[in-house]
């Protein structure tokens, strides 16, 4: 800083710690609840320190699930969420990188039109076309399937734009060299473009994995059977509003398990996360 002011620095530390405490407190309480007996929580007598039922609660959550509302084990829900998140992330990256490659490295009729068609999907989030998209998926017989959960979401204007921007910075000499060496477009794509795009792919993967894992409205519409349920939807169904039947210890353990994978991805792949966050919003 410009001036050396120990007091101002101390205030900064205090403000940041208060911020962190406010941000972390709800999660801490949830964790505490996931380690207690159900009766102690529903009495409103829950202490602020973790209880002794950690293993028991998590074991039941993952392998058996809540008994009252749905019998799907949360382990199964996590598997569904994982498949959905990875399929969406990988699918979006794959179809976007080839689209961007076509738009940048070739000249063909309707090139601009197609680019705009992809670009304009930014303005059509699922929320504005909920039921008509649902109807298309239903007509195609894709309800309650991984195809229905993922394929309608894998078009990506953002990822296509990002790859396009990146390809435009790749030196022309590389294409010329590849041509002289006799490499065709597919060979050039596979041997040069894909390896060069690795960092961008990693950054996109982090953002898109979180996007896929956290989907709510779409799986809510598309899945009706218990064993296709994703974990985020599962939690909602466990909490029975205005009812004492909610098994809070199981619901809270599920909440912890729903947060764990995406938070771990953000924390451990921090560098790519920040890069992805900044670049996808440009």
């Amino acid at each position: 800083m410009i001036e050396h002011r120990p007091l101002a620095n101390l205030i900064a530390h205090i403000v940041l710690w208060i911020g962190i405490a406010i941000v972390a407190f709800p999660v801490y309480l949830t964790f505490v609840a996931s380690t207690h007996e159900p009766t102690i929580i529903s009495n409103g007598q829950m202490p602020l320190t973790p209880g002794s039922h950690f293993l028991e609660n998590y074991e039941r959550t993952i392998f058996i699930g809540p008994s009252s509302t749905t019998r799907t084990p949360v382990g199964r829900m996590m598997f569904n969420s994982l498949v959905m998140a990875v399929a969406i992330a990988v699918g979006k990256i794959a179809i976007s990188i080839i689209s961007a490659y076509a738009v940048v490295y070739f000249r063909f009729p309707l090139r601009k039109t197609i680019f705009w068609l992809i670009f304009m999907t930014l303005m059509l989030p699922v929320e504005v076309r909920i039921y008509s998209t649902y109807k298309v998926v239903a007509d195609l017989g894709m309800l309650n399937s991984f195809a229905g959960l993922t394929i309608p979401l894998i078009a990506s204007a953002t990822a296509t734009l990002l790859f396009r921007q990146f390809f435009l910075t790749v030196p022309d000499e590389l294409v010329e060299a590849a041509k002289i060496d006799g490499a065709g477009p597919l060979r050039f794509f596979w041997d040069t473009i894909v390896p060069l795009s690795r960092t961008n792919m990693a950054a996109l993967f982090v953002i898109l994995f979180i996007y896929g894992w956290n989907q709510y409205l779409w799986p809510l519409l598309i899945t009706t059977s218990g064993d296709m349920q994703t974990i985020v939807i599962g939690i909602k169904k466990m909490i029975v509003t205005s009812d004492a039947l909610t098994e809070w210890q199981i619901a809270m353990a599920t909440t912890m398990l729903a947060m764990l994978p995406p938070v771990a991805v953000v924390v451990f792949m921090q560098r790519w996360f920040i890069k992805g966050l900044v670049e996808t919003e440009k």
Partner: protein
Amino acid sequence: MEKRAIYNNRVLPYLLLTPQLLVTLIFFYWPALQVVHQSFLLEDAFGLQSSYVWFENFQRLFADPDYGRAFGVTVIFSTVVAFLSLAIALLLAVMADRQIRGANAYKTLLMWPYAVAPAVAGVLWLFMFQPSLGVVAQSVKRMGLDWNPLLNGTHAMTLVVLAGTWKQISYNFLFFLAGLQAIPRSVIEAAAIDGASATRRFWTIIFPLLSPTTFFLLVVNIVYVFFDTFGIIDAVTGGGPARATTTLVYKVYDDGRLGGDLGGSAAQSAILMFIVVALTAVQFKYVERRVHY
């Protein structure tokens, strides 16, 4: 900008674009056209016949007090969440931008809520504020407030605002911090040499230079509150009590689930589409300014 060195091939580019175009046309454009088409149709009670009524569905919608109410709820919700999350994030970012020890650790400890699903964020806050067993709700009650988000609309709104703000702070914080770090130190040093105090430097130099970031975040936050908070509302209040937390997006979902008025529901979606187009246009018009100061 265009590439000079390119490949010549008549078929390959179309093949490469096919997967993206198929998904786009089948799951984006076709349903979107359906929405616009249906918004001009009126179905009879049995769903057997439909006739073109042009803007009648829209007129009916604007005359409906429920729709006006949902509009009001959305505006209040967006404004409060955007203001609170931007203000808190800016305060934290300014503090983290001081060259203090552990700045990177603070960044890590503040950014992870980005990864939490909106619905899950809603559940976290619902649990704390559950009137009969929530830890915070009990303290609030002991202070003499009859807290009950299940019956009181203002309380329910407060709860979804808290969850929505909590979830958005990390995103705004990361962008504010990046914006602050892009401001040249020399400008701030020059002001300090001229004798400007830290507060004065913030309001006359840092805040104006940060305005492109702030503006960008404002638009992004409004879009966030419009669409991404669906999960929060559905998990925490289900739009209630008595529609006190029913936003425009939630209303489309809720009305459609009950079935019935197809044209009216499509008209609601068409209006939302118009709002997104407007917001995106604003975002892209000013996005250039954000990049270079």
